[in-house]
């Protein structure tokens, strides 16, 4: 018994050391790659999605945004990868699963938005008297999609319990996770809309609007995908309780887990015109 424990400790310790080493290597390589480099094609893609004209005055703002978000999203992705591999190693195997990677990436995206909200003010401050609302930056339905799905997740858990009379802790855990994700995403989205806007030239304000819109699209696409994964997990957990309908539910889970990330990606990269950003500025 003691020998077995010693062996497990040695394997665990070796795994942890290897994992730490791999993490350090990956982070330092990513850090070297990511340090503020934004390709011209990436900048063009951003400008195209919002019909934004990049100018001398707003270019740096967009580049800074793209660099910051990419750095944090990549960091989250790597953390998710290391966490996933580390956990699998701890369990005595080695496997890659999509969900921890995606969840890590999304947490990175959330952190990036929180960091972008930091602003310093001088003694002379200016602000526009134009109101900003979420619908300026994102379709109204997309704004409420995550919370609606979270409510559906809780309702679905209740329905499954009432119908089968079986208490499945996993189903309620996933419903709770869906609610937490929806609330966190909604709060960060509200923070993105509410963060200070510079009262500057039209091209700078247009870039700021485009940045807000892109952030909201990414948060919505990622958040909705994660909530949908919770719902699919619930379906998978209760499928065996529903007899023949259970196999259909399993099919929905398999197809959904392939389709919904693609839909989330499409939502995150969708084009959006912030109406007041269409002012024509000198071409780039």
């Amino acid at each position: 018994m003691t020998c077995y424990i010693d062996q497990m400790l040695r394997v665990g310790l070796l795994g942890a050391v290897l994992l730490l080493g791999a993490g350090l290597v990956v982070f330092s390589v990513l850090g070297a790659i990511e340090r503020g480099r934004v390709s011209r094609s990436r900048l063009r893609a951003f400008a195209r999605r919002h019909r934004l004209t990049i100018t001398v005055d707003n270019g740096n703002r967009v580049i800074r945004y793209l660099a910051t978000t990419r750095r944090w999203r990549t960091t989250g992705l790597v953390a998710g990868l290391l966490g996933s591999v580390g956990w699998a190693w701890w369990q005595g195997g080695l496997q890659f699963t999509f969900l921890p990677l995606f969840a890590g990436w999304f947490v990175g995206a959330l952190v990036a938005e929180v960091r972008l909200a930091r602003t310093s003010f001088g003694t002379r401050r200016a602000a526009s008297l134009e109101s900003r609302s979420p619908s300026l930056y994102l379709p109204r339905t997309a704004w409420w999609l995550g919370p609606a799905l979270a409510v559906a997740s809780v309702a679905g858990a209740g329905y499954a319990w009432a119908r089968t009379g079986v208490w499945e802790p996993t189903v309620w855990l996933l419903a709770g996770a869906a609610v937490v994700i929806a609330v966190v995403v909604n709060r960060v989205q509200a923070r993105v809309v509410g963060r200070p806007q510079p009262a500057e030239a039209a091209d700078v304000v247009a870039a700021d609007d485009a940045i807000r819109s892109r952030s909201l699209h990414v948060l919505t696409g990622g958040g909705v995908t994660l909530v949908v994964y919770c719902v699919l997990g619930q379906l998978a957990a209760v499928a065996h309780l529903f007899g023949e309908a259970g196999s259909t539910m399993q099919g929905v889970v398999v197809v959904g887990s392939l389709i919904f990330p693609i839909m989330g990606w499409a939502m995150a990269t969708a084009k959006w015109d912030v109406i007041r950003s269409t002012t024509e500025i000198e071409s780039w």
Partner: protein
Amino acid sequence: MIVEVDTTSPTPPYEQIRAQVARMIGAGVLPAETQLPPIRQLAADLGLAANTVARAYRELELEGLVTSRVRHGTTVVHPQRTLSGAEVNRALTDAARAYVTVARQLGVDGDVAAAAVRAELKRR
């Protein structure tokens, strides 16, 4: 439309906001039914506490220039009295005098001072 606040000014920030918004309403630049930004938004944009902006809005409401309704926000009401052309000109002249005084104190010639005004007008 832009409001500016100077935190080093002896005039309290809420009064600076109130005076500027009142001037814009009086001059007809902010017509009736115009919706003012939510208190939180304006406070965040100016880096001020929400209470400061709330006080400015409250003072404007007491003057009868705006009305606040729950879920509808703050909107401009039809002003009982608007600034006449002469009053607008006088206010503009006063501001120009103050600007020229600063330009002279800085030793800047007329062309440079006028160019700075033109650049700022173009920027906003």
